[in-house]
């Protein structure tokens, strides 16, 4: 179900920047193989009734890189990640995961592929402890009884691998954790299932300075483990601290997609608010594909 190519898209500047242009598999510029991307969407369109929440979105997410998804309220960020997580199914467009076209028809399909989503509300049970939360719905059993020992070992190992060292006991209730620690537990829960891509929705929104630093560290750790990280954030400071790529949604369209080096704070704000790349910005013409 390939979309008929939109001529206006084709008209974009096609000079190849090193990272952003590589692997443009829609036929525009290809200097590398298509499988550089872990996930690639082609012409994703999602409508709610008459409203087109997403139109013709071509997003690229690379393994071992952090892609920040920016955009103002209503730009379609949440809709896009829900499409990736299998909560919505787009009407048009194609998703290519690990070189293969896939249809993500439900959350189970997404997690089956290794796409794990950490929603803003984290979906943790305050009345359960860390181990219990990390294994919720996937409990290990031993002759039908819960195998607490194995679960605790695995949970501990995952947390250690993520360098989550600030939790005193993994048997403490999640309700007693700080915001950053809760985020860490939610991420660990996602990673433990051999995630290849982790989508995080506003991971630092409600956190203080130290907690934010901890979560950013966590994101870097994920990246170093070769996991593709897609982060939605409103906090540009945080974005510039961890992101490798920035993708900007504007009114349902993917307006700009470029390496983080192509932006500064001002040009990022400009892109979010206007959907255009700041013409005065550094390296703009060389590395950036601007669609509109």
């Amino acid at each position: 179900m390939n979309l008929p190519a939109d001529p206006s898209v084709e008209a974009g500047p096609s000079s190849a920047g090193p990272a952003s242009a590589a692997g443009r598999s829609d036929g525009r510029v290809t200097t590398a193989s298509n499988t550089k991307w872990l996930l690639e969407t082609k012409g994703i369109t999602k409508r709610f009734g008459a409203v087109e929440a997403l139109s013709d979105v071509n997003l690229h997410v690379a393994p071992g890189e952090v892609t920040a998804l920016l955009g103002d309220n209503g730009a379609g960020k949440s809709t896009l990640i829900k499409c990736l997580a299998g909560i919505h199914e787009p009407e048009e467009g194609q998703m290519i995961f690990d070189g293969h076209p896939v249809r993500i028809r439900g959350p189970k399909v997404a997690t089956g592929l290794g796409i794990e989503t950490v929603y803003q509300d984290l979906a943790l049970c305050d009345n359960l402890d860390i181990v219990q939360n990390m294994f919720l719905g996937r409990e290990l059993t031993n002759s039908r009884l819960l195998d607490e020992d194995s679960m605790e070992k695995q949970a501990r190992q995952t947390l250690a691998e993520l360098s989550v060292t600030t939790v005193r006991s993994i048997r403490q209730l999640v309700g007693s954790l700080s915001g950053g620690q809760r985020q860490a537990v939610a991420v660990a829960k996602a990673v433990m299932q051999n995630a290849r891509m982790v989508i995080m929705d506003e991971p630092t929104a409600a956190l203080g300075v130290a907690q934010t630093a901890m979560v950013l560290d966590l994101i870097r750790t994920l990246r170093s483990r070769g996991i593709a990280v897609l982060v939605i954030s409103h906090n540009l400071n945080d974005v510039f601290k961890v992101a490798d790529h920035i993708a900007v949604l504007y009114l349902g369209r993917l307006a700009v997609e470029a390496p983080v080096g192509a932006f500064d704070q001002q040009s990022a704000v400009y892109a979010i608010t206007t959907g255009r790349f700041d013409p005065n910005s550094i390296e703009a013409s060389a590395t950036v594909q601007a669609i509109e």
Partner: protein
Amino acid sequence: MTRFSEPSTQAGSDVSATQPPEQVVALLDPASAADNMRDYLRAWVVRIRNGESGMLPVVLGLVVIVIIFQSQKSVFLSAGNLTNLFTQSATYILLGMAEVYVLLLGEIDLSIGYVGGVAGVVTVATAAPPGDHPWWVAILAGLVVATIIGIIQGLVITRLRVPSFVVTLAGLLGWEGVLIFLADREGGTNGGGTIRLSNSILLDLVNGNLSVAAGWIVLVVGVAGFAVFLIARDRHRRRHALVVPPLGLTIAKIVAVAVAGFAVVAICNTNRGRIVSHPVQGVPWVVPIVLGIFMLWTALLSRTRFGRYVYAIGGNAEAARRAGINLGRIRTAAFALTGLTAGLAGVILASQLGSISSNVDGGSLVLYAVAAAVIGGTSLFGGRGKMLYAVIGGLVIATIANGMGLIGLSASAQYMVTALVLLAAASVDALARRNSTRSA
């Protein structure tokens, strides 16, 4: 990049599982982080201040109640009365445990009093002439009926999405109707809606006693089993560097169980007969029966997926849904178990009364059941509670009823005092929680 690989020079330092990631202490969890008894006690105090008082208030309350009654009526702490108290509390405890299942989900079941009544009628009628079915067939029939009622109510609640309060309120009315209908029909015209229980084994469930020796043997085996289980588990977990409660706490638990068990058996094994030549002694059958059900249900809640999901749904239903848990099925199963446990309570009630009639006050029973669960510390909002809470709460309810009966207070006073105790228990809990300083 990672904190672990920086200081250590091992290439690609693969953090081994045995290295506990607990060096950095950002947030002290009072509860589970203690390694020794003193830390644990200090943490316990913090926890109580934070509103997680657990069973402390209700246990203290029970002690106060007992002291008051004993000061008013010295026969209160006699062996005969205490044994009587144990058997009286069985119905409240069982109904309280039934209610715990649904309270943990954040639901409520108002029908269990009459569900128990219906189960009691079915059991008694099945064992009565002309059928004269054996005792186990009778019990099975009663429990099956109660479980089916629970499933039906659960399905209406989960499939039609009618609030459990409304569905079981309908049950409260409807099953009383069924109870009266069955009791009138089975009791016959001259029975006046009362069916007598003639099966001796069913009568012995509450009224029969273990032999003195059997009581001691059950105690020793039970306590020894409990101790071995706890110690073996702790040793295993310590060897695997898992979180282990302090040794002192484990010992304290074992000692507490041993002392309580010894007290119960010693009291029940004291001769409580009035005629010297005919000693009445021994632990009533109902005590080990209730204990067994308690242990079974505790294991179900704490050691199976089903139990874990019950807590998860009560804590955050949306999180449970996203984790792939089938909420409807777990909820329905919980209502089925509530029905089953209520059925057990009905059987025990019939055995205790020696008959069952259309006068079973299921309305009061269910309120006592909710009270028992809540007095013990079960949250009405879901996610917090244990079967043990229902046991303690049921004992409190029975103690009040028993003691006030001894003093000779009227039913009106009993209701009012029970209400005050319930209110006090809930208030202590609420006040403590308001003072809590929870982060997050």
